[in-house]
């Protein structure tokens, strides 16, 4: 349904093409207007980040003054320490640390597993079609649009039947399942764009399914795999729904713990600790974003459907 609709934007989204809009003249009122609009928009986008940072560095008495945008009069790092180490979720007061470790475990396991699986899918769908493989792919793409709620409950029952519900392998399987539609589409489109002679030559030389995969296709798919890694790392780190439902108390990811810390505090609401915790949770995907730069743009354009 969407593979056609997606491909043009996917290929063009690198942003490397020259702008083709109206030609700029010297500094006119129009030009000033353009920059004014962009700067105001940029301020709107930066405002929450600014508020997060300054709030996290203020003491509570200063926050109660209600000067949301002001720089802290007295910088304190205590909220950061507390958010990391001692903030409470219900009765446990271990801060975000355990959540961070859980998210790290979940992400480090789910990203390679889901990508390897999808890579083999895309490879098989491009070069080794069998009866019904296209139908399976169609179902998978349908799966990209299904509201998760329709499959969640039977999946809970299924996973608990095999003893994997609320375990680390369980949540890895869940991320692999729900990442599969878009990643398979990504890799299938990539392999389909390779010259077919490449595959034919290897076949003539007598190479089989795995040999061609490991010796020819795997080394060639490094660029698209980087896009997939960025997509999955941010997607899995930012996941909330699957973490709440499938991870269980032992493997609760950082986003779920953050939400618990912020929304279930009894007594005094410590806004500075909350904001420090929020920044800490956002830090990993933000780092991925700023390090990967244009790769990230390519990744979201390609994998946008996952939303």
């Amino acid at each position, binding site marked *: 349904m969407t593979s056609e609709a997606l491909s*043009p934007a996917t290929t063009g989204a690198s942003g490397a093409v020259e702008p083709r809009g109206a030609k700029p003249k010297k500094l006119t009122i129009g030009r000033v207007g353009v920059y004014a609009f962009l700067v105001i928009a940029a301020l709107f986008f930066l405002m929450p980040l600014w508020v997060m940072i300054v709030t996290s560095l203020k003491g509570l008495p200063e926050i109660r003054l209600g000067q949301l945008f002001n720089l802290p009069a007295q910088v304190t790092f205590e909220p950061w320490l507390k958010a990391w180490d001692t903030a409470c979720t219900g009765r446990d007061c271990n801060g975000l640390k355990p959540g961070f470790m859980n998210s790290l475990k979940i992400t480090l396991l789910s990203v390679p597993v889901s990508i390897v699986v999808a890579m083999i899918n895309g490879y098989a769908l491009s070069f080794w*079609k069998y009866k019904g493989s296209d139908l399976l792919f169609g179902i998978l793409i349908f799966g990209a649009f299904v509201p*998760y709620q329709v499959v969640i409950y*039977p999946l809970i*029952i299924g996973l608990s039947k095999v003893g994997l519900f609320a375990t680390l392998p369980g949540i890895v399987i869940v991320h692999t399942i729900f990442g599969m539609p878009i990643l398979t589409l990504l890799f299938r489109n990539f392999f389909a764009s390779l010259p077919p002679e490449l595959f034919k030559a290897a*076949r003539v030389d007598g190479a089989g*399914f795995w040999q061609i995969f490991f010796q020819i296709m795997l080394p060639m798919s490094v660029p698209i795999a980087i896009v997939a890694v960025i997509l999955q790392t941010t997607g899995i780190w930012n996941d909330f729904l699957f973490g709440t439902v499938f991870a269980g108390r032992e493997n609760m990811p950082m986003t779920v713990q953050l939400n618990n810390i912020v929304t279930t505090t009894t007594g005094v609401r410590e806004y500075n600790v909350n904001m420090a915790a929020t920044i800490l949770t956002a830090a990993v995907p933000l780092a991925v*974003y700023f390090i990967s730069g244009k790769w990230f743009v390519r990744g979201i354009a390609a994998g946008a459907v996952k939303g």
Partner: protein
Amino acid sequence: MSQYAQSSDAAALVSTSPPRRARRKFNVMSIVGTTPMILTAVGVFVICIIFSFIWSFTNSKLFPNFNFVGMDQYNRLWASDRWRISVGNVFLFGVCSLVANMVFGYLLAVFMDQRIKQEDLFRSIFLYPFAMSLVVTGLVWQWMFDPNLGIQSAVRQLGWTDFQFAPLTNQATAIYGVVLGGVWNGVGVTMAILLAGLRGVDAEIWKAAKIDGIPAWRTYLFIVLPMMKGALLTAFILQCTGVVRVFDIVIAMTQGGPGVATQMPAIYVIQHITDRVNVGQGMAAACTMLLPVLAVIVLQGVLQWNAKRKKEKAI
């Protein structure tokens, strides 16, 4: 096993059969390699949905059972104020989000297309919210919307003492607060996709429009926009799937409140299979959520089939 498959394939290739037929040949390894895909496609996206469908006709409570009660769950669903409000909310949220996202996204793309300096910097600024989770987005905006310490109080201290801006505390406006947070998070993606679409439009169009003396804004609105259907569709579909699934940001911002002002179908389902221990009801709601998706897919299929038939007739 792999050696067997390899050698038999190679033999088939070397012998008389042409390469195309060899490629179509049944390969065991291809099935072995795609086992996870077969399990996911059939096991999750077919069998799980069938089970959800079956259980939606039962009176399952904490655990699933097979005591069929006919359409009871669906009747109860549509009799429930909570559900009807949820459906209304998701429509309102969807329309507002889609319109705001597409309009603002296209505006940003057009302004970014003016051969500006520091394009990469602006792009980074517009896109970074998308790298943050919707939970983070929701919590930040919830804090800024705080009636006593948030934007409202900051502006009041500047001297505008009756300034009102705390949408989340009011039943009538809470949903627009969530829309604002969602648009802040996702509009950069729309901008990136539409900008790529703009750059894909033929440069000759611009020259022609200029020669005809058409002002730039009219070219953007009436000539270029209809030419980038692919990018528009991609951005649109993306936002739509996000709307149907809206969950995280509402949980983080309002938990569905105040009252039921921001209650959504996705939350309704999760609440019924967890806290409310009413699986049958939850499954009925989940299957109802699937209906619009199925409707769009069927519509798409009919349109494609029609276009194909027209093409064949033309030939």
